[in-house]
């Protein structure tokens, strides 16, 4: 635009431009007008807004990155073995523990009064603050507590003795102290690292054998016996207690129970034998003040001399703890051990949810978009679906419990499992009802995404297909659905992400803090959808805020969070990978 044209802009035009014109006019020189390369007032240029937008984006990224970094740092540091310190206090008391965290605090007047003048002055000089450290003293069975705060002014001396072990036990949590006695086959033997390692390996094998017998074989026989008992009950209900058919069936079942009982006895005897042998290998532990604890060696999960570890050994312990975390069952009220049941529950529940939500959401969207006559009714339905996405999830939990578990499950129990009543089979929370509840919760996401994907399929494609003599269904099946598939997958991914991260409704419809049996096992019919399950999200809540010892749970909260995030990211990433492959297949379809 030349300057002369700018003069033609009427005064009623944009004031900013008129202002430019006016300013240009004042810069006339006898030799001609100077044309300014850039001139506009601040409200007309985008730069300040750009800075604001960029700043907002940067802030968001920093928040997310900081959050992830904190989770990752705490989560990944948890399993790293830390040194054990022996702390002598000025009071003459001695304690041993792992320093976990520390910080300034303001000692109360009662504490200050007991201190000498010098320390008091130092604290006063520091605005009344003193530093303290939290030690994991462990030995819950002896002390009744796992943690202890130690103020710096109480400390007389800190050493890191080489003979202190960090010992993770099957029960009572961690023990910190020395190993003072090892008894093999009833006779005391000399304690050497090699001998300890060898005996420990053997002891753990016995432990695994006992557990395998009790959980696996004996558990299976128990389940079978229970099934026969239910069969007796069913025969009584269906055929009448006195009828000859019922009597025959009952007799048959009782014979089978007797067989199973015999088998049970054999297994039990075998387990007892191993246990008796196990009892002869014992270990004596001594805490820092000399109090001793004696236990079977097999009860020790892992032990290491915390202060003399080489880097390789530390890495080994770190990896073995991670492996235990993802492959074992929890112990010590979920604050130790692994989370395998929770991982399994989360994945199984999410996949089951997708199985329910995918066909339901896609079919609904197909009907709404492709078949239903567009009008007031369809728009009301659409608005309602969108609103469903905004209902608080706990409401879904209540609905799931009331409708799925009690109403539907109760009916199923009465019709199919009357013999088990009054114990509910399906009439309580379970993985089936939990996935159905979450499917209900996420179905609006799938419907909305699918509808958008369907409406984005160009009309020319449908017409091309119809003109070829394809029916409407064939057009949808061969042309529209494949083309819309990436969009539908996006909806699935969003639904999965939402469903896997949801906890509140699950607490009502089937998640428990400890589920001894997985929903899938080796006992026919192998998949038990009526069972309660564990969930990583609920596990975080339970470990961090519901356990007897929340201090012990804090590291597990971070580790479990890392795991949950990893799991959700993995599931989403694989779904995105599938979607992108589909997308590439149908790329450049329009021009």
């Amino acid at each position, binding site marked *: 635009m030349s300057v002369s044209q700018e003069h033609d802009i009427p005064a009623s035009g944009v004031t900013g431009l008129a202002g430019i014109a006016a300013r240009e006019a004042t810069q006339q020189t006898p030799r001609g007008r100077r044309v300014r390369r850039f001139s506009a007032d601040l409200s007309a240029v985008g730069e300040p807004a750009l800075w604001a937008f960029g700043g907002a984006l940067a802030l968001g990224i920093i928040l997310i990155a900081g959050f992830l970094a904190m989770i990752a740092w705490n989560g990944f540091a948890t399993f790293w073995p830390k040194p054990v310190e022996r702390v002598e206090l000025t009071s003459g008391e001695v304690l041993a523990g792992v320093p976990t965290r520390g910080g300034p605090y303001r000692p109360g007047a009662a504490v200050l009064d007991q201190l000498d003048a010098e320390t008091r002055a130092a604290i006063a000089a520091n605005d009344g603050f003193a530093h303290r450290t939290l030690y994991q003293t462990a030995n819950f069975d002896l002390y009744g507590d796992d943690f202890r705060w130690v103020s710096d002014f109480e400390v007389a001396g800190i050493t890191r003795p080489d003979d202190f072990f960090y010992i993770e036990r099957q029960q009572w949590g961690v023990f910190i102290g020395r190993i003072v006695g090892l008894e093999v086959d009833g006779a005391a033997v000399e304690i050497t690292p090699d001998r300890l390692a060898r005996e420990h390996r053997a002891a753990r094998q016995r432990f695994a054998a006992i557990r395998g017998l009790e959980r696996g074989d004996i558990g299976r026989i128990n389940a079978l016996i229970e099934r026969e008992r239910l069969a007796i009950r069913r025969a009584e209900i269906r055929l009448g207690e006195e009828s000859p058919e019922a009597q025959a069936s009952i007799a048959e079942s009782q014979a089978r129970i007797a067989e199973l009982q015999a088998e049970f006895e054999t297994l039990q005897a075998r387990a007892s034998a191993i246990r008796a042998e196990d009892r002869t290998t014992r270990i004596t532990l001594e805490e820092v003040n000399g109090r001793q604890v004696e236990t079977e060696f097999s009860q020790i999960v892992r032990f290491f001399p915390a202060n003399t570890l080489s880097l390789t050994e530390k890495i080994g312990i770190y990896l073995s703890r991670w492996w235990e975390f993802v492959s074992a069952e929890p112990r010590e009220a979920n604050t130790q051990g692994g989370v395998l049941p929770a991982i399994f529950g989360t994945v199984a529940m999410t996949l089951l949810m997708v199985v329910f939500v995918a066909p339901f959401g896609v079919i609904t969207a197909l009907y709404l978009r492709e078949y239903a006559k567009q009008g007031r009714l369809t728009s009301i339905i659409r608005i309602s679906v969108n609103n469903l996405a905004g209902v608080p999830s706990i409401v879904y939990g209540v609905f799931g419990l009331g409708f799925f578990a009690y109403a539907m499950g109760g009916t199923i129990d009465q019709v199919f499992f009357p013999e088990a009543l009054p114990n509910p089979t399906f009439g309580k929370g379970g993985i089936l009802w939990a996935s159905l509840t979450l499917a209900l919760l996420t179905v609006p996401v799938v419907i909305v995404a699918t509808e958008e994907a369907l409406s984005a399929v160009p009309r*020319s494609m449908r017409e091309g297909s119809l*003109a070829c003599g394809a029916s409407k269904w064939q057009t949808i099946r061969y042309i529209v659905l494949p083309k819309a598939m990436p969009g539908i997958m996006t909806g699935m991914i969003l639904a999965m992400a939402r469903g896997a991260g949801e906890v509140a409704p699950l607490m009502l419809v089937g998640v428990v803090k400890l589920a001894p049996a997985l929903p899938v096992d080796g006992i026919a019919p192998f998949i038990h959808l009526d069972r309660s399950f564990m969930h990583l999200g609920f596990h975080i809540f339970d470990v961090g805020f519901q356990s007897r010892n929340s201090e012990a749970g804090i590291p597990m909260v971070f580790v479990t969070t890392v795991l949950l995030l990893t799991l959700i990211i993995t599931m989403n990433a694989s779904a995105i990978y599938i979607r992108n492959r589909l997308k590439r297949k149908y790329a450049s379809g329009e021009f």
Partner: protein
Amino acid sequence: MATAQTTAQTTPPRSDGIEPTVYHPREGGQGSALDIRNFNLWYGETQALHDTTIDVQKGLVTALIGPSGCGKSTLLRSLNRMNDLVDGLRVSGEVKVDGFDIYGPGVDVIALRKRMGMVFQKPNPFAMSIYDNVTYPLRVDGITKKSILDDTVERALRAAALWDEARDRLYTSALGMSGGQQQRLCIARAVASDPEVLLMDEPCSALDPIATAKIENLIADLRGQYSIVIVTHSMSQAARVSDNTAFMYLGRIIEYGATDTVFTTPKVARTNDYVTGRFG
């Protein structure tokens, strides 16, 4: 439509308000492929076609010309009932193929569309291989025999003058072809089910001159095998490829006659105005 109202107000309508179609088509000698009689069509309250009556000669190329919004595409899409997809559509009158009315009761629309191949403005190949695109009309019929499909692909691609270019890439995606090739692929797809009539809705409007020339040659080749109805905005194209031309204006067929007559000595003044570029 504003023009229509102005016309109606300023010039008093003749008798029933409808100009009679001036009718002088060239005869194909094989009778008519499509017989459109007093056909009216409404989109809701708006009447888009007024009493159109023409009969499309078998084996010849019939061009529909006229200014934008005159109802050419509507008429074309009525012939294989593609307009059925529009809400609030009403029709009266009849369109006869081999003596039966395609808007009559109990007509199988799917069977009808198989007898009427259609090519659209923009090439719309499916996101499949070239082979699958061409065999799509057969596969929706449930034909899976490989030999039949193979034969059809070769026949249809040869008919669409695409065989030499596509024979080595039959199983690659059709979306990788150029625009002109895609449009010829769509023509191949339209002739794959061996229809009687080919409906072409401005098939060259999205193509460059060279691709356009190829399609026009192709139309000349297909003439005789199929009865072709082509809607076009380009009068020179209509003059080059068609035997008969129908000039439409405001939903009416003003003149329907042999192409050379329509373009050199039209019998209606308005046709003359349009083909000489005085309006439109």
